[in-house]
């Protein structure tokens, strides 16, 4: 008669549809929250979920209810002080008639905070960037693993027993365990031979020695030929399929003309490249180089925060990068990527030098060089020189003049296409 139903393995995500609808409905607010989060995050943190908050009043579900005015009578428990007729001062916030004032103050109501999953977060991140769908799925994918041999272990399943290793171990163990006996045995043999040489081969001592030799031989014989702890198994471990490493150079112009808005766009640009690299490479290092007339290697905080005035000499950054590559990232081990963001200003005479550097030294060393010029107006001299580099290395060099985040993707088009093929 009684029915007990085990529902634990039933559909787990019954609310997933509702959750998606919620996110879709408040996409505007959530996107804003995600943008704030991106500004806060480190580039390498892009690949996680995020707690976001959106204003409660935006998502309220209104119903008719009473306001503050009017007569109210409340019954409360736990009276420990009052008798009938007592008068109590009104609590401060209850001051009658100030209902509207209170609601105005209430504008800063607590946000409705919830956690976006990694997929949801990336989805919104990608949304701004106008990525083609195929690319989105590729970037959102979690790295695949493959199983590779990794030596031998002492535990495992019988199918993985390595016979040669196991027997070698057994032999070694037998040798080691029998060593002391054999040493004594050798001594005894020597003594016996001596005794026999003196003609005392039938004496009492010789008989003793023979008995001892027989005992020791039995001992050696009883050592097990193979024991459980001799067994060795082939070991296989999971490693991420592309187990190579990459270094990503973020080069940014921090001269006075790069304002906050431009830096935010640049950050998106760096994040996207980073995300791409995490899908392709196991280990990634990021080097931040900022420059105005001088280039400096800095950490991420300084990279985005500081702002300097003065002119711009791009080649200083390229030289620094080249130096760092030579010192730390020998190019046959490291895959080198470089992302450069600038507003296009450069000292007139420096631009040809940049092209020179790129073509002769840098481009041959690296996998991909992506350059964005965040500006609205006419392209500057640097752009013209870079365009020549792109013409001669279309596979490895990409550049784009952009106004907003949605223009970033074309810079990577070639890169993504290659990796998808």
């Amino acid at each position, binding site marked *: 008669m009684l029915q007990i139903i085990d529902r634990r393995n039933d559909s787990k995500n019954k*609310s997933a549809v509702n959750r998606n609808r919620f996110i879709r409905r408040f996409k505007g607010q959530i996107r804003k929250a995600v943008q704030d989060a991106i500004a806060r995050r480190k580039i390498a943190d892009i690949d996680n979920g995020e707690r976001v908050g959106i204003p409660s009043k935006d*998502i309220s579900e209104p119903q008719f209810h009473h306001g503050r005015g009017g007569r109210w009578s*409340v019954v409360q428990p*736990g009276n420990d002080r*009052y008798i009938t007729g007592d008068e109590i001062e009104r609590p401060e916030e209850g001051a009658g008639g100030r209902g509207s004032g209170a609601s105005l103050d209430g504008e800063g109501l607590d946000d409705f905070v919830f956690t976006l999953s990694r997929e949801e977060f990336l989805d919104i991140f990608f949304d701004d960037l106008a990525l083609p769908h195929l690319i989105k799925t590729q970037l959102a994918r979690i790295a695949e693993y493959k199983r590779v041999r990794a030596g031998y272990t002492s535990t495992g399943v019988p199918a993985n027993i390595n016979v040669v290793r196991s027997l070698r171990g057994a032999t070694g163990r037998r040798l080691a365990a029998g060593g002391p006996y054999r040493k004594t045995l050798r001594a005894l043999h020597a003594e016996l031979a001596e005794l026999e040489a003196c003609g005392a081969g039938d004496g009492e001592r010789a008989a003793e020695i023979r008995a001892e030799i027989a005992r020791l031989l039995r001992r050696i014989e009883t050592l097990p030929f193979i024991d459980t702890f001799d067994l060795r198994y082939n070991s296989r471990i999971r490693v991420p399929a592309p187990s190579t490493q990459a270094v990503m150079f973020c080069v940014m112009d921090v001269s006075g003309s790069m304002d906050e808005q431009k830096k935010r766009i640049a950050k998106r640009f760096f994040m996207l490249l980073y995300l791409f690299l995490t899908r392709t490479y196991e280990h990634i290092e990021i080097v931040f180089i900022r420059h105005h007339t001088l280039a400096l290697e800095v950490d991420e905080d300084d990279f985005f925060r500081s702002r300097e005035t003065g002119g711009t000499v791009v080649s200083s950054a390229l030289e620094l990068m080249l130096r760092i590559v030579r010192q730390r990232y020998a190019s046959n081990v490291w895959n080198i990527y470089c992302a450069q963001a600038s507003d296009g200003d450069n000292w007139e005479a420096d631009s040809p030098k940049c092209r020179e550097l790129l073509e002769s030294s840098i481009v041959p060393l690296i996998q991909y060089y992506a350059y964005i010029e965040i500006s609205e107006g006419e392209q500057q001299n640097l752009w013209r020189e870079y365009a020549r580099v792109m013409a001669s290395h279309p596979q490895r060099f990409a550049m784009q003049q952009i106004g907003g985040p949605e223009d970033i993707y074309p810079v990577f088009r070639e890169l993504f296409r290659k990796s998808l093929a």
Partner: protein
Amino acid sequence: MSEMPQPLPTGSEWSFESIEIYDREIGCVAREYGLDVYRHQLEVITAEQMMDAYASIGMPVYYHHWSFGKHFLSTEKGYKRGQMGLAYEIVINSDPCIVYLMEENTMPMQALVIAHAAYGHNSFFKGNYLFRTWTSAEAIVDYLVFARNVIAECEERYGEEEVEQLLDACHALMSVGVDRYKRPPKLSLNKEKERRKERESYLQSQVNDLWRTLPQGLEREATQSERRFPAEPEENLLYFIEKNAPLLEPWQREIVRIVRKIGQYFYPQRQTQLMNEGWACFWHYTMLYHLYDRRQLADGFMLEFLQHHTNVVFQPPFNSRRFGGINPYALGFAMWRDIQRICQEPTAEDREWFPDLAGSDWRESMDFAMRNFKDESFVAQYLSPRLMREFRLFNILDDPREPTLRVRAIHDEQGYRTLRQCLAEQYNLGSREPDIQVWNVDLRGERSLTLRHFKYQGRDLGESRDAVLKHVATLWGFPVRLEEQDEDGEVRHLTEVRIDRRKENQRP
């Protein structure tokens, strides 16, 4: 029952066998006490599924809407950060009665839930007049499936946005979309399906008739101008809109109807929370103690059970930091225990206050109370002076015309009746929620709809009213006015919402 009852399994781990044993034993006790219940079905679920169930107000199937996603997210956040535990149980008023058991709970907890929900709530659902009148336990799950399919179908045909916008508007009116007095017809899935098509075409023709604007000849005008519509004010806004909103498509009327039906289904729960929870607590307490007295439960079990039980029925005093109003579990449990006590060991005071109850058969008297009352009348009828003293109840009056708050009554001889009356009033949904009715439709002119708020105790509508009115306007399709009538009968115009036709398809 054998002469020597077997002790029940001990230990905190539950298994399907032990749940079955406990359920059998508790069922035996319930029959001994004469509890009349629906069959029940226990379903073991995970914490995550419990959160899913939360989001859809406990229903096993429900249509999709963003607001359920919002509830899910906030529950999930609270749970994952350890700010709140999940409820021990969710029970669904259906036949068979569905009770969820959470995987994480220990055996004593599962037994508590079985006694509380599968027998306590279950018998209340089956017995109480409100549930008998307003809900059809055998049809609700089928109806929810029907509702979900209809809404999914509409989403496919007319777009998710359209449907979502409509549902938003309906949800805003859910609390003023119930019949408080009329008795509804029974729900039946087949009838619903059969009649759906019929209804669609019929309703549309009715509405069209109402709004026919062909020239009718001047002689009819005089009579028409005096015709009031609706003839009587209508308290059920959703019903009125479903039947009369001029611009709604048939499928939209169907959705309004679904939301209204579901709202109506939950109305009894809102009116009987105190009684229902108290009743369930009373029975889990009584039945598990019964088993303990027969030595079928170990001491360790009882300790764990009592810890949960006391947590649930704890009432912090008004000046405690944990205070959050009167705990319905605490007061309800105490009231049912008190009724039992009055029946079994009445004092002189009880004989004076409850002459019929004192000394009567407690099972019969409690059954009568369970069947025929709702929170409001239950408190008015059964709250005893002794309990008022025990809870140290007192009543505060906040009248904006007075400079201070006043203590109107406390737990003493002069105060008992006032206190009881005030507390009963506090459970009266009619006064807790604003009374808003459809007052008039301007048939001859701009077709505007006038709602009237009947003020009670000088209470205004909260600031959300404009947002709600916008929803009414989207449903109605023409301007919507709101006026209020205070207790002296004076009427004031409050506000008016017009929807811009060109923006009609946008979100409110």
